[in-house]
């Protein structure tokens, strides 16, 4: 029986083997070894869905050009002469802000790791799952400049019935009958964590990443970080939009919300040929728990029978991933399988195989990296 790997390697990717390509390397199928030069891995051209190459996720901040790209309908078709954000609904004083108004509120920076809720969907084996078949790279980290949402909500004055914030962006589907992508978040979450950003890694937020203004909801999957934000509707109840009530649901019907503990090996890369001996390992680990969320990362070369701790390195910020590194000892040549697992501060351990769900969401299965060791 052919495996998925052998199927692709044999070039039987006529079903869509050309669907995934990289900048400058448009002929590379999705699951073949990653070329060292990196570049976004395109899963779908329209609307653009593209993964970050793992080789470009070794740095704490992901460069804008390597940051994964995801939206349901692509960027807005056109832009107003002046961008505005309106806060209204269950508020005492509906208010509209221009970008200049927002900048006058001051600015701060916040580093946030954003992961698509479908990251890893392609690693599940589900016969009925729709959606982009993401592998490992629908995750990135950036430093965002903007203001906490709290100040705007306080300016508008939420009334006693205000419980949810419906976030509306300017994007829309080509056909009018398609539901608008609209997500709501609990008002308490918006007050405590909502962040409005207009810069990404020190530059105006690019079109593909939600510029000129987007929301960040740190600790939650990316669907809660609305791009091209124009309107905050303050409401007594959660939105009943398709993308709230039907989509983004787990197997038990509960909503997809907070990031799960997870880790990713960024070095070595899959299918590399390395010499027997000491191998340097790098990676990133994250959770949705905020400060100190990652307690430990461990590595295994014997299919999980024994584990060795990795060193947590670099910055520790509340909603950013934590870098790790280690050395592992390869004693004999041949195929190798390296596993990484993270544990968060609640004690939750990344599972070997996450429980599948019909939507293919929140796959935090351990990263299993295969490579070859050769005699030096």
């Amino acid at each position, binding site marked *: 029986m052919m495996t998925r790997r052998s199927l692709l390697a044999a070039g039987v990717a006529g079903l869509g083997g*050309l669907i995934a390509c990289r900048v400058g390397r448009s002929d590379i199928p999705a699951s073949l070894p990653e070329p060292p030069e990196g570049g976004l891995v395109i899963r779908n051209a329209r609307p653009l869905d593209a993964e970050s190459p793992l080789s470009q996720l070794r740095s704490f901040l992901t460069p804008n050009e390597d940051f994964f790209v995801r939206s349901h309908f692509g960027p807005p078709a056109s*832009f107003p002469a002046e961008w505005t954000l309106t806060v209204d609904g269950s508020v005492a004083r509906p208010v509209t802000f221009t970008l200049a108004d927002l900048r006058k509120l001051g600015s701060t920076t916040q580093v946030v790791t954003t992961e698509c809720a479908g990251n890893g969907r392609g690693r599940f084996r589900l016969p*009925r799952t729709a959606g982009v078949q993401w592998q490992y790279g629908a995750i990135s980290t950036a430093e965002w400049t903007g203001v906490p949402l709290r100040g705007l909500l306080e300016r508008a004055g939420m009334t006693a019935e205000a419980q949810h914030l419906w976030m509306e962006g300017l994007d829309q589907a080509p056909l009018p009958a398609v539901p608008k992508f609209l997500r709501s978040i609990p008002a308490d979450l918006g007050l405590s964590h909502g962040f409005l950003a207009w810069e990404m890694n020190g530059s105006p937020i690019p079109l593909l990443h939600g510029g000129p203004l987007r929301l960040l909801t740190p600790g939650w999957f990316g669907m809660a970080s609305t791009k091209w934000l124009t309107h905050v509707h303050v409401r007594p109840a959660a939105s009943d939009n398709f993308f709230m009530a039907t989509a983004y649901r787990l197997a038990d019907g509960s909503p997809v919300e907070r990031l799960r503990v997870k880790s990713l090996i960024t070095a070595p890369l899959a299918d590399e040929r390395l010499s027997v001996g000491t191998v340097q390992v790098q990676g990133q680990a994250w959770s949705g728990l905020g400060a100190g969320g990652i307690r430990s990362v461990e590595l295994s070369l014997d299919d999980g029978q024994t584990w060795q701790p990795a060193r947590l390195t670099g910055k520790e910020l509340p909603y950013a991933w934590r870098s790790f590194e280690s050395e592992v000892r390869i004693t004999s040549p041949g195929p190798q399988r390296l596993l990484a697992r993270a544990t968060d501060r609640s004690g939750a351990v990344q599972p070997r195989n996450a429980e599948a769900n019909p939507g293919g969401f929140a796959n935090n299965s351990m990263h299993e990296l295969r490579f070859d060791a050769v005699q030096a």
Partner: protein
Amino acid sequence: MRFRPEAIFVCWIGLAASASGCRPASGQAAGNAPTQAAPPGPSAALSEVIAQSEKTSREALPPGSGRALVESNCLICHGAALIQQQHKDSTGWTKTVKLMRGWGSPLTDADESVLVDYLIKSYGPEGR
């Protein structure tokens, strides 16, 4: 090649405006020149790869009576790659096609089964 943000912006407008029902934002006519609020678009290199990817995936659609239906219905809203990376069974593809019809795909009743059969044959679960 130097990146021109207005080029990709017009490209995005063209993609959206090519489908029926497109509504320009804020009262502007689709196709107008970008305004000062438009953020920087993707690099020229990425724009080229996106365009090539769209073309390549469309050309990779297998021949058959369902291919034209894919092109005239599904590709209104999204690229062929979104279809090609699925591996759905009969239930999955039927559900998807009915959902898309509910969302405005112009597919007729008579063509629905032809399209579903084509999708199962081309992108069924055995493709994994």
